[in-house]
């Protein structure tokens, strides 16, 4: 019985961790290239959830298909934020804290706009699919979570491959290492910055679509996910997409086991404690330096 519970909660943690990994990968990509921590990341995810919610409610569009819309939509939003708000302060060489204040302000603004548009009401997404489970060896698995995990993992690996193998990836990595040097090799640094911010935000949008069937929705869910994304990013090592995968899975399992063996109420505290522990003991993250 005890073993069963352990397996069940570990599995749940891993599955949720896959989603965390995707959320963290976006933040990590942005940080890796621009050295900016995007504190509006969770709010981007929240916007992705709303897009998916309304596409389903109005046009009955499957949440997993709506990824095709939430990704480009958030890419555009992210690129615009980078171009018009982040880029000017990066040019001024402002202290790091200003970037934090700026993106925090942006996140707050997004939340409030969504609140004014769609009210602060909590909404849930209800389809039979959202609650369906399959049972393997006595362990029940949420289909929605499993699907989300599969897609999240697939996208993370795709992102990693793109970074390693394509010209786009090479220009992102080159700019991450040294923007000025990269520009000497014909890479348009500012364009790459916008691209990175766009793609990173787009990934948050995708995560929002995947998350909708298994979570509730309100304008204020973003903040919690910004923190989770940051924790995942730090756990994996800032700027590493592969690290985000490790960080995401670690956070997912830690939360899930903590909820079962400590207390559901303190689920988020467990996450913070793991984060503080890792920061104190291994500030470079669990993975350490990786290629990306």
């Amino acid at each position, binding site marked *: 019985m005890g073993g069963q519970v352990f397996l069940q909660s570990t599995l749940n943690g891993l599955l949720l961790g896959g989603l965390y990994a995707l959320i963290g990968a976006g933040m990590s990509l942005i940080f890796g290239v621009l050295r900016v921590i995007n504190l509006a990341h969770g709010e981007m995810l929240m916007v992705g959830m709303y897009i998916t919610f309304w596409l389903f409610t109005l046009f009955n569009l499957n949440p997993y298909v709506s990824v095709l819309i939430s990704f480009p939509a958030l890419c555009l939003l992210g690129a615009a934020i980078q171009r018009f*708000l982040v880029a000017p302060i990066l040019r001024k060489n402002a202290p790091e*804290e*200003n970037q934090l204040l700026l993106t925090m*302000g*942006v996140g*707050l*603004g997004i939340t*409030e706009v969504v609140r004014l548009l769609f009210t602060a009401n909590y909404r849930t997404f209800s389809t039979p699919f959202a609650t369906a489970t399959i049972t393997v060896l006595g362990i029940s698995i949420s289909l929605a979570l499993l699907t989300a995990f599969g897609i999240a993992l697939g996208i993370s690996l795709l992102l990693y491959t793109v970074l390693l193998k394509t010209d786009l990836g090479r220009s992102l990595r080159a700019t991450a290492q040294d923007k000025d040097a990269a520009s000497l090799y014909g890479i348009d640094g500012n364009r790459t910055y916008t691209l990175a911010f766009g793609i990173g935000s787009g990934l948050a949008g995708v995560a929002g679509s995947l998350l909708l069937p298994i979570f509730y929705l309100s304008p204020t869910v973003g903040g919690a996910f910004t923190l989770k994304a940051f924790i995942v990013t730090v756990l994996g090592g800032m700027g590493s997409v592969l690290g985000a995968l490790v960080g995401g899975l670690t956070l997912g399992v830690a939360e899930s086991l903590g909820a079962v063996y400590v207390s559901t109420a303190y689920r988020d505290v467990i996450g913070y404690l793991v984060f503080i522990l890792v920061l104190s003991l291994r500030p470079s993250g669990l993975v350490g330096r990786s290629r990306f």
Partner: protein
Amino acid sequence: MGAPLVHPERTAGIPFVRAIGLPGLGLGLVLVAFAVLPLFVRSPYHLHLVILFLLWVGLGESWNLLGGFTGQISFGHAAFFGTGAYVTSLLYIGPGVPLPLAGLVGGVFAAVLSVPIGLVCFRLRGPYFALTVLGFAEILRIIAINWRSVTMGPVGVLFPPIFRDKLPFYYMGLALAVLTVGVVWLTLRSKAGFYFRALRDDQEAAKALGIDSTWYKQFSLILSAFLTGLLGGFFAPYQGYIDPDVVFSIPDISIAMIVVAVLGGMGNLWGPAVGAVIVVVLSEILRTTLGGAHLLVYSGVIIAIVVFLPDGLVGWFGRVLARMRPPRPEPAAAREHQPSTAAPAALDMATENSPGAGEHRRRDGVLLSTEKVAKAFGGLLALQGVDVQLRRGEVLGLIGPNGAGKTTLLSLISGFERPTSGRIHFDSHDITGLPAHRITHLGVARTFQIVRPLGKMTVLENALTAALAHTVHVSAAKEKAEAILQFVDLYSRRNRMAANLTLAERKRLELARALATNPKLLLLDEVAAGLNAAETKTMVAILERIRERGISIVAVEHVMQVIMSISDRIVVLHYGRVLAEGKPAEVAQNAEVIQAYLGVTEGNDRA
């Protein structure tokens, strides 16, 4: 940012005003106005708004101390506010502790709580600090929600009404606001205040000035947390009700504190007062008209300020004023442009108090020795077993091609890097691996190759901060700083912001700061690099005079003219090893040296 704390002399005609100064008079009038304000503001609603203003002045200023003056941006000050509010409420309601005492204990609790938070967070910089504090605030919120037996859980704590009207609260709020601003004001004029601002402007430079960065950041956090906790303890009885989502709120407390401070101007004493007026009035208007869109306004304010007015409204106003006023000549510039040889006493001031002043002039004994010092950066061996000795009063030139390990050696001696192996002895102390600030206190001062001025402090404040290494008296440090600025010919620039100096002046400021820490040993990293012929001459003259005072010097330098003229002895480093050593003339003749170093750069005596 803002007015320099060490003011140029101000004189006003009226004796009374001259005694307390114009700002003092203005401040006194404001205080009197606040004291009698309730005679005129009769409506409880308006009094309520003024009380909120006072609360937010205090909160903004508490945050400002840590964020604006110490450069440690916290996104989680609700942790301290909430702790103060809860501890005060629970003590008052439970065991019936009297309110002032309960509030004090609340502040102390917040301060105590800030210690472990600082221990974890100050190992991290910038964004990590900001967000980790936020994480702590969230943990406390979750605890307050779930620890029902003590905190009464999510329903919160009801505070029984203690006063029939708002008047007592008004005076409590006024007292707390005055206390907070006063504490910050006093702190800024003390040694700690200068150290806070130095840490904000450049942590590495601060360490070189003997500042224990961890302790001073922690001190700033404790003070800030205490004041925030006190204000939390005031908020609870005034509001009459607290719950976890109110007092530990990220947007309504943590972010609002940042907004108040940033809007007025981070690192500006009066910034939070301006920020608080705007935030309180604006929130109130929005609450009554739009119904809670104040967060949208916060967001707009933060974005606009960060993008357009990084120094806030007060800073912007100051710049506008400065532009309107005709430019004033530098105070008494002509008088001070006298040749700096006229200030030989300056360096006496610098050396006479130093622990080993008497020994300086005795040219015997070893002051510094390195034994088989090695340093590896990953796979790169920057230094591979270097033995260097320096006698008291000696000037050692350290030369070698780029990448030879010269700067690394200086960093090891000054404690900015730990050697991978080997020992370093200085003045009968084993200083291997000691933190940089302690090595500074033992009498080693360094300059940086890439100059690190404390940019938002004046030239005088830069030197003064360094002079605080051996005294807590700001006035004594100021006198010494002035003398040293005369010595390096920067006295006429003393009220300039350090960020606005020319390169040559910045190099001399580096030197002035190093001298102000009372060094027995001065480590100079390319103080002449990038200077033109005239500036180089001035620099050499200053170095000669430092050397006359018996201060030992290790100088890394590429400018041959400088190194050959000031050095008693020269050590040549090459690929992390000592290639040659001897008198300048000998080294210049050494075939190996010529091949390795001079040969490649012959006729090219710049960096």
